[in-house]
């Protein structure tokens, strides 16, 4: 079980959180003209890297905030966590 540092609450066990996928995905603007291919890339396609991955987590059994986690998908090492409007330090 991972130990994740919520930027609002501090270190908590993984069972308080839910996973939210790739944090670098940007939703297309509302009303934006967009090709089917680009839309499909947004909805369905995700990279599956081995190594450093920037991802979203939601502190569902805590403060209910979404935030960013920089994690190694192979070793589970967590390099940094930050609020949505912040950038990772490492």
């Amino acid at each position: 079980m991972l130990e994740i540092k919520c930027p609002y609450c501090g270190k908590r066990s993984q069972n308080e959180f839910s996973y939210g996928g790739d944090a670098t995905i940007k939703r297309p603007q509302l009303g934006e003209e967009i090709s089917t291919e680009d839309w499909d890339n947004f909805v369905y396609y995700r990279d599956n890297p081995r190594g450093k991955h920037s991802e979203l987590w939601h502190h569902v059994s805590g403060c209910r905030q979404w935030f960013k986690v920089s994690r190694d998908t192979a070793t589970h090492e967590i390099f940094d966590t930050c609020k949505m409007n912040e950038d990772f330090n490492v």
Partner: protein
Amino acid sequence: MSNSFRTTNSTGLINKDKKINFTFNGTIYHGYEGDTLASALIANGVHLVGRSFKYHRPRGFLGVGVEEPNAMVQLHDGNKSEPNIIATEVELVEGLKAKSQNCWPSVQFDIGEINNVLNRFFPAGFYYKTFMWPKSFWMKIYEPFIRKAAGMGKAPLLPDPDRYEHNYEHCDVLVVGSGPSGLASALAAAKNGARVILAEDKPNFGGSLLTDEVTIGNMSGKEWASDTISQLKSMPNVILKKRSQVFGYYDHNMTVMIERVSDHIENPSKYTPRQRLHYIRAGEVIVSTGSIERPISFGNNDRPGIVLASAAKEYMKVYETLVGKKPIIFTNNDTAYSTALEFIKNDIEPIIVDTRDSSNGELVKEVQQKGISIKFNSGIADTKGHLKINSAIIGKLDSSKESFISEETVECDCICMSGGWTPTVHLSSQAGNKLKFNDDIDAFVPDKKRQKETAIGAANGSFTLNQSLAEGFQVGFDLSNKFTDQNNPTNSPNSNEPSYEKHEKLWCMPLPSGKKPKRFIDFQNDVAVSDVELAIREGFRSIEHVKRYTTLGMAGDQGKTSNLNGLQYVSKIEKKIVPEVGHTTFRPPYTPVTIGAIVGREVGNHYLPTRKSPIHTWHEENNAVFVAAGLWQRPRYYPMGSEDMNSAVNREAANVRKNVGICDVTTLGKIDIKGPDAPEFLNRVYTNAWLKLPVGKARYGVMLREDGMVFDDGTTSRLSENHFHMTTTTAQAANVLSHLEYYLQVVWPDLDVNVLSTTEQWSGIAVAGPKSRDLLSKLFPDVDMSNEGLPFMGLVDSSIDGIKARIYRISFSGELAYEVNVESNYGLYTWKKIMEVGQSFDIQPYGTEALSTLRIEMGHVAGAELDGRTIPFDVGLNSMVSQKKDFIGKRSLSKDAFTESDRQTIVGLVPLDKKTKIPEGSHIIEDNSAVAPIPKLGHVSSSCWSVEYNNPFSIAIIKDGKNKIGKNLYAVSPLKDISIPVEVVSSHYVDPEGSRVRS
């Protein structure tokens, strides 16, 4: 022969003043307080405890602790029965019952032993090869046969009556194992102010100090251990746990430990758990798990009475028990001589067989000084004795040590063997440590760590006491310094122990002349030298493949005694060095763990939390039959007298259509939405328009996922300019909240909106039926309930007996209906009040079944239609989709597949005979006589008995549904062998114009 194998000394840890009676295979024996099941049986001369896994060979004890691969027994009976328990780990308790496993009819005479006679037909990979074909034989012949013949103990069929607890712990330093290095590190860390947990698997702290003749400072090793434990006990920053095995090392320094709380207590108090599972998140983990002695492979080296030399010593020193009275010590190193000396102390002269040419070790000399001659350059070639060893064939090794020059038969009743020592690296390996091979000790030791884990002492390959203590004190201090600022090191005391000479790299004896007895490597999985040879001959090269093909080092045992001997043998055949062969991965759990302990208290009603509405007690008092809706308990129906479910449901539903019904809808998800951008936010979340919804009005909304599938639906109302009250389905309440939070926090943080769950703050009561207006007028005389005063989708605040209430005119049943919301605590009062006033309007409560009936007849969609695979078009909600604005998931709706003209749509189905109910999940096909595979048009999502028309009615989602209305199709359920001719009708079966809700 009662306890005839006890020593006469009393230097051990058992209490001979307290007798304990127990039963093994139906015979009553006694042992003493402090015994294990294993030591007590051995003291009674019982070595035969089970049959081996594959060949059903008679097996006895090999070890004295967790390393034991053979002595697995079935404990207790009835609902307390537990299989595969290691007898060396069971503390004796009055009345204990145990029996052998994997044998029938008895351990002495086992039918399965035929496998041993036929053993050339059961080589490695036997199952893979033999049972592959013909394929059709698998289910009927092979599988049941293997099931019967294989398998160890029997799982109990009754619920476990015992109580298990979970505990979460945090500490700076967790020390696993209380031998010299573990004690030293715990003491150093604790004295430096760190919060320390020290875990020991056995009932006594001290590890090897309990059996080794050493001194530390001016104390014996045993005294130093007990002195150190007293010091630790007095410190408030230390938790000491014995009978506690750390069996798993997971990510981010999460370890899991099982504590045997009351297994050893005769009559534990009612509220004492049997076992406790501790999740320990440790800042640093010190792995001081020691080492395990290695067996030696030789002919028939698995007979009862053949044990590890260290086990024999511990049985004598701790349990005052002799594994035999005519022992042979067989070794490739010096440590087994301490076992020889222990026998000599008990006036027993052992025969000593040493593979080496000579040794000048202190213990060897001491043995020689006692006048005992040692058979150097010798090995055991074979053994005899069916249910217990009675003799050994000792051979003189030639110079290459590849064969025997001469052989002699020697009588004996036990063999104590030692192939040297293997560091217990399981936890480090589980933690991701890349092990390295240490040539000096011919074993793997931890090297490159991935987590905050440090191995010390024998687990780190440091086999001398001096080194172990020094490492312990140093590492304990260094690691604790990360957590405290006391900088208070503890010095390592002087210690004294015998010096040892090096072991010989020899773990497998040559075969005796003219014979090919099995030489076992892995006792638990019945893997012999010949199996490893076969695997390699058949081309398996990777050690991971050899492991799986032969089953070497698998299962509960995890190769504790077999792993390295297997590797050594592979490397010998392959002519590679061991590090080139590599090692297999160690996996948790290190020792078998009771499933009950893993489950903990999450059984029965504690499996999940139960959510009850504030009106629950009324439902109970009024005979409600409940159904689980997620975590909620909801009334399903309220049978009257001897009514069955169908008649109760029909009565309840019909009463709503005719008079008025009342339904508890508290479970619906409710979300409070506030902020200047709230209307804009709803406009983006829902498919329809929200900007112009007037204050005091409700609107039905549908929300999609980005892939265009319907996510949820519900009514949301505008309470004031910037304040909305959203309702969701019961099932999706939590997911909708997360979804809204995601868009507000991640996608559109510029929107000034706050969302908050208010599901549990409101109690919701639906009042539905043609008489509902009259009833509500009486309840709320101040409110104008006329169609103009409170129109469909309107809402109004009022009060009832001083309780604030909000009345929504909304309908799920398709009838004229209202929903009264009050603060949760007043839900029950309000419900009772409505029931009371409703008597004169023939009010009746209705449950979820009638609720479903009413909505299905009306063609209102619910979870069965909104199953994550339907877009608005499919479920008749296209009119809800705004063409003017963008919203979540809209772009997906214009994808090719979603705009095909013959796309699936929702329809109604009525069986032609107007009698047969169509099972939900049935397939819809066009031609009943077609040959399979028959193209499927769609499926039945919801079924009910229409109370309006008094015949069955179903909702289905079928391809090109809108053009199928009026046609006859078939609803088939091949599993139930049902085929029902049906007519396709509109899904709006009752009141298609929707006039009732607006009346």
